């Protein structure tokens, strides 16, 4: 595989150019609805409870009870322990259950433990598995081992879709983000599997620049093979405006086909709240004052 270099200055400049697009009125409404449908509503805290997950699931199916035209989110993203709870709460809906696995977030466990973690989550009913790569192996140059581990995890997923978290905040350079993207994709990802920026536990998490580099890797893979891989920025995307910037970047880098929850997701906990607020404002013609409250908690 050819090693592809990425120049940070120009990549950042390009990423910033997407934030200059002016998304108003009907485009804003459509974009925000798409953002809702692309959200992996996430809770990944040590104190997560079954009750919190059930409440999140209700929100996932009907994000805005006042407006039934607003679509359900793409998935609920939880720790393996809570997969069954989520699965039951989402029964009958189209919302997927995504589970982090492979010793999330550090991945600092023996491969066998990580694979067992994955299998249990799948057996508990997870439709999607968010794995972490071993950054230690990758940064120490043992990329072949990382390749093998991703391939083994893919196998352990069975029919569940796999999302490979690169933890770009620990890779630091765009060259490495690109190399890790290419490696993950080559390790056996199939159509509608994902590469994902971050665990959300490391700063910086998702940025426009990093996500652009990953979108470009996905684009090149598609042009070469015709296989469509998804991209999921996670962590740090909190506002509706940011979400629209990302959607512009997807549209102008990968085209219309990627404007679907099957191929682009936002990993976020507080984003949905702001998107719904903005949709509420649009619905009210921008004239009505809306008190700010956390709809995901409500």
């Amino acid at each position, binding site marked *: 595989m050819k090693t592809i*270099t990425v*120049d940070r200055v*120009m990549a950042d400049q*390009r990423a910033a150019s997407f934030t*200059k697009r002016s998304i108003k009125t009907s*485009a804003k409404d459509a974009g925000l609805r798409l953002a809702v449908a692309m959200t992996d509503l996430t809770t990944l805290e040590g104190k997560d409870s079954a009750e919190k997950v059930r409440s999140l699931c209700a929100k996932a199916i009907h994000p805005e009870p006042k407006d039934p035209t607003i679509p359900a989110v793409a998935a609920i993203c939880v720790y393996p322990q809570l997969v069954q709870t989520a699965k039951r709460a989402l029964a009958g809906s189209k919302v997927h259950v995504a589970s982090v696995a492979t010793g999330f977030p550090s991945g600092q466990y023996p491969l066998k433990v990580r694979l067992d973690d994955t299998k249990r989550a799948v057996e508990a009913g997870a439709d999607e598995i968010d794995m972490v790569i071993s950054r230690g192996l990758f940064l120490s140059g043992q990329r072949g081992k990382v390749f093998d581990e991703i391939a083994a995890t893919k196998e352990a997923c069975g029919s569940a879709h796999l999302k490979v978290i690169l933890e770009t905040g620990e890779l630091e350079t765009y060259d490495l983000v690109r190399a890790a993207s290419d490696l993950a994709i080559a390790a056996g990802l199939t159509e509608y599997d994902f590469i994902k920026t971050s665990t959300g536990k490391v700063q910086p998490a998702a940025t426009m620049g990093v996500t652009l580099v990953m979108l470009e890797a996905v684009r*090149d*893979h598609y042009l070469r093979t*015709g296989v469509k891989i998804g991209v999921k920025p996670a962590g740090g995307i909190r506002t509706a405006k940011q979400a629209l910037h990302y959607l512009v970047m997807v549209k102008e880098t990968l085209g219309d086909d990627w404007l679907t929850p099957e191929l682009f997701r936002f990993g976020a906990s507080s984003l949905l709240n702001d998107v719904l607020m903005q949709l509420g404002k649009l619905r009210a013609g921008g004239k009505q004052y809306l008190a700010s409250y956390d709809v995901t908690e409500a």
Partner: protein
Amino acid sequence: MTDHENIEPKATIGDLSHETVDEPIAETTRRERSVRKHELNFGDAWDYAPAPESVKVNIDASYGHFINGEFTKVGGGGGGKSFATINPANEQKLAEVALGTAKDVDRAVAAASAALPKWRKLPAKERGKFLFRLARRIQERARELAVLETLDGGKPIKESRDVDIPLVAQHFFYNAGWADKLQYAFPGLGAGGAEPVGVCAQIIPWNFPLLMAAWKIAPALACGNTVVLKPAETTPLTALRLAEICAEIDLPPGVVNIVTGDGSTGAALAAHSGIHKLAFTGSTEVGKKLAKLAAERGDGLRLTLELGGKSPNIIFEDASIDQAIEGIIQGIYFNQGHVCCAGSRLFVQEGIASDVVERLRIRMQSLRVGDPMDKNTDVGAINSKGQLQKIEDYLRIGEEEGAELFRANGRALPDKGYFCAPSFFTGVQQSHRIAQEEIFGPVLAVQTFRTPEEALSRANNTPYGLAAGVWTDKGSKVFEIATKLKAGVIWCNTYNQFDAASPFGGFKESGFGREGGMQGLRAYVRL
């Protein structure tokens, strides 16, 4: 493409095949296009709604010249001819503007001469204050100026808002800072210090109307000179708005004078015996005439010329390709290619040529061409009907010469106004006119090379020498190539970056003298 589904692509992105090296690039790309299986789909699944700039600006029905701190009357009892300035995006008239005669020029030069003694004697820090005031007022009225620039010139509001006007303010701020520090710009001077040159005649083009005015006026004033500026015929409105601002901040009358008009007005100004310095930005053809005129005057008229270009943008195979693509786009489609330093000749190392062309083709599908006042427009209107005609002539010439033309065809161009889809030619030979002559439009000539020496000799093989771009991930190659390129400005792994602190100017037929930076002050002082 379904009928070709069983055929494997020969060379694809990220998987660079060398079996194509013996074919001209046009052949290669043609063949690949016919066998490519997987196309990205840049349609209108989520189309951006129109996002028109909402700021409205007042434009008077007519404008006179700005001489000695006042606007002259147009038409009226005093007579005088005028001409219309139009919006190139819809061909509608914006205002009637006075056509400067030799008499008008004479009055303006007289005003500048009269203002000179007091202005040059003003304590330098006071001159600086006026420039700071200008800069601040430009910032305050930035949105209005941006809208006016876009209306009169056709450039996208995104560019006038984010590039032109901020740079205009920066040039005034930057030069304001120099006004009382000239002894540090020119160290070793005696007690007299740096003396102003005198009355400066400045003739500017239509591609960056207000920015070119700032490039010229700011250093001249900082050094204690007075100015007579002639804006381009098609884009006088922002310069006239700048005149308003000069009056608004109480700049002493006569320090800045603006005479609008066409080539005849510029000729009268250049020939005027009362000027001490002539600065011109524009075509090489006119620049040569002015150089001849300056020589014939025999009075030591100082001259700086910033002329045309056919700048090479060189992409080596170890470059970061996606970023180089951005550089190509920025180099040739920025401001519809109406950029004297546009990267209009692309040299791509042969091994990656088909890959680069393919990626460029894909990238161009998301360029938005259309209404310059829409905030999402990337490529606006061609500045004038005449310029559009010239560009279209070159598109025809290129095809007649045997090059293969690609035109971005994402969306239909507006019915009214002067628009040109971004285009590039492959299969271009050095002897082709499209590889030699400045088109000044969104038209790129793509050529290939095999070795760095070949790239250098072909890049330098031009009468021009304004700018160049080098793209490689290897630092040593950057420095080696950059030192051997004969160009005034060389960008490495970027293109079309401007800053008030950075000097700008050319070699050979691209002119002489530098504008911007500390070096830009040199033309405006006697040491």
